[in-house]
């Protein structure tokens, strides 16, 4: 059974496009969103669109919706906060969420809240520059750290001088970027190549303010660090006096309330969080880090500002999220991971039954599926053929009522239930059969 027509949805989209560029508020369209779906209701893991179609939501708004829709305890906490005080610079909501983050996240000696991942990452770069009195930062291919001019898109054209530059046709490129902003500030290396990393540090380490990495390369296909890679990066940063920044926008909270860093046992100097730390209902980002670096904010040597930073509703949301997820030794997260693993097993089994090679890789909570027999070892392996096949499966799932995040990410939530798994099995079976036929036709 495919979904019913998208009549009301289409009509609404046409209405929006008259006043909203493209009918959307952001530019990275989902592969399955030929027309964005507009939802009218959400409960648990399910969403209902304007035409009455039901979906299993494994998209979770780019992973932010960790608690599931209409989570009772979370909504109660938000409503209580709204009833007390909404718009003040300081309130009595701050201490609890900050102390919870401090208790759980290894690098969180001190914490500042912001609103978006893009802006908080820029504050992290600013702090690292001020701390080291150096200008350049290192990032890695196929990682994503927000849409600011200095850090989005680009490619390296000369491996001996690994500076990212604009190239015409970059789908993560943008017109209007300030001239030379990437070339003047940054380097970019392939990830998971320890030899290249060591060579690079030997040559550039002493002039490097910071290195920023996703601890699991979720944006490149949920690829985990090779054994010892993050540990070696940590050693090199320490040796050269370079600030190590983990971007835990996606992994933070999803892999555990202590983030990927606690699970992997590698502690960065600074970490950026966002998305799921606010539970999925309100935007909050956070910059956490070592006291000696964060002290630059206290002394006001480094500016971090924003009208809504630390706003009461956001702080209440972080508190509720950490309380729900950390309770009883993270019981809710463990249950979510267990069900996510079951869902992934169903996907693999149904793909095999349909004759489609498919694996799932990455920690449960931030995993991706790929239409191949072997897990990817570095993001460069995610080529046209594989990405296309993944898109075909993702679009087939969407047609059959299962929403996947880009490109093939599976984001479970705390309310994922056994009934959801049953729903998934029935709908995935139909979708995978359809996808296998499409893939066979193209490749």
């Amino acid at each position, binding site marked *: 059974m495919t979904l019913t027509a998208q009549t009301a949805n289409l009509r609404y989209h046409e209405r929006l496009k008259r006043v909203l560029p493209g009918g959307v508020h952001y530019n990275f369209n989902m*592969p399955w969103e*030929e027309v964005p779906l507009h939802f009218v209701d959400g409960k648990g893991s399910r969403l209902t669109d304007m035409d009455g179609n039901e979906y299993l939501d494994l998209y979770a708004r780019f992973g932010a919706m960790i608690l599931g829709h209409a989570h009772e305890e979370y909504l109660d906490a938000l409503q209580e906060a709204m009833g007390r005080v909404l718009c003040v610079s300081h309130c009595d909501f701050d201490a609890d969420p900050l102390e919870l983050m401090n208790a759980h996240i290894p690098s969180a000696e001190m914490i500042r809240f912001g609103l978006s991942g893009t802006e908080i990452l820029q504050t992290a770069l600013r702090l690292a520059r001020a701390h080291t009195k150096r200008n350049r930062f290192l990032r890695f291919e196929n990682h994503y750290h927000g849409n600011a001019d200095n850090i989005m898109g680009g490619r390296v054209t000369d491996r001996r001088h690994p500076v990212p530059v604009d190239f015409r*046709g970059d789908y993560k490129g943008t017109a209007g970027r300030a001239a030379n902003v990437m070339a003047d500030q940054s380097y970019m290396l392939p990830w998971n190549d320890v030899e290249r990393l060591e060579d690079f540090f030997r040559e550039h380490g002493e002039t490097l303010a910071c290195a920023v990495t996703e601890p699991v390369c979720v944006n490149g296909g949920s690829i985990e660090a090779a054994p010892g890679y993050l540990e070696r990066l940590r050693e090199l940063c320490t040796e050269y006096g370079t600030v190590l920044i983990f971007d835990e926008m996606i992994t933070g909270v999803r892999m555990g309330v202590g983030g990927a860093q606690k699970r992997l046992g590698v502690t960065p100097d600074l970490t950026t969080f966002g998305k799921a730390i606010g539970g999925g209902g309100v935007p909050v980002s956070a910059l956490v880090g070592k006291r000696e670096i964060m002290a630059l904010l206290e002394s006001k040597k480094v500016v971090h500002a924003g009208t809504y930073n630390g706003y009461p509703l956001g702080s209440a949301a972080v508190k509720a999220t950490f309380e729900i997820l950390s309770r009883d030794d993270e019981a809710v997260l463990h249950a979510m991971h267990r069900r996510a693993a079951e869902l992934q097993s169903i996907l693999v089994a149904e793909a095999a039954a349909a004759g489609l090679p498919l694996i799932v890789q990455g920690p449960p909570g931030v995993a991706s599926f790929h239409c191949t027999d072997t897990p990817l070892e570095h993001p460069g392996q995610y080529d046209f053929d594989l*990405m*296309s096949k993944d898109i*075909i499966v993702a*679009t087939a799932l969407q047609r059959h009522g299962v929403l996947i995040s880009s490109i093939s990410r599976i984001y479970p939530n705390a309310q994922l239930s056994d009934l959801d798994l049953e729903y998934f099995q029935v709908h995935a079976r139909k979708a995978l059969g359809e996808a296998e036929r499409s893939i066979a*036709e193209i*490749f």
Partner: protein
Amino acid sequence: MDEEQIKAVLTKLIADEIGTAPGEIDEQASFMRLGVSSVQALKIVNRLRKELDMDINPVALFEFKTIEDISGYLAEAFD
């Protein structure tokens, strides 16, 4: 290959895929409006990248949704 040449190749591939004449294809209409599904679009771009011998990120297909947009994107990438 310039933008006009890429446009002509792409228009022909789309026309073949949906069984119509290239002259009937509106270059400014979105793939969806032309009746091209996402799977058909991938199929077309797969043929196109082989014909142009160039690396195309399939995600770009969903950012540039008309023949005109995609041809412009590819012409720049070709440069």
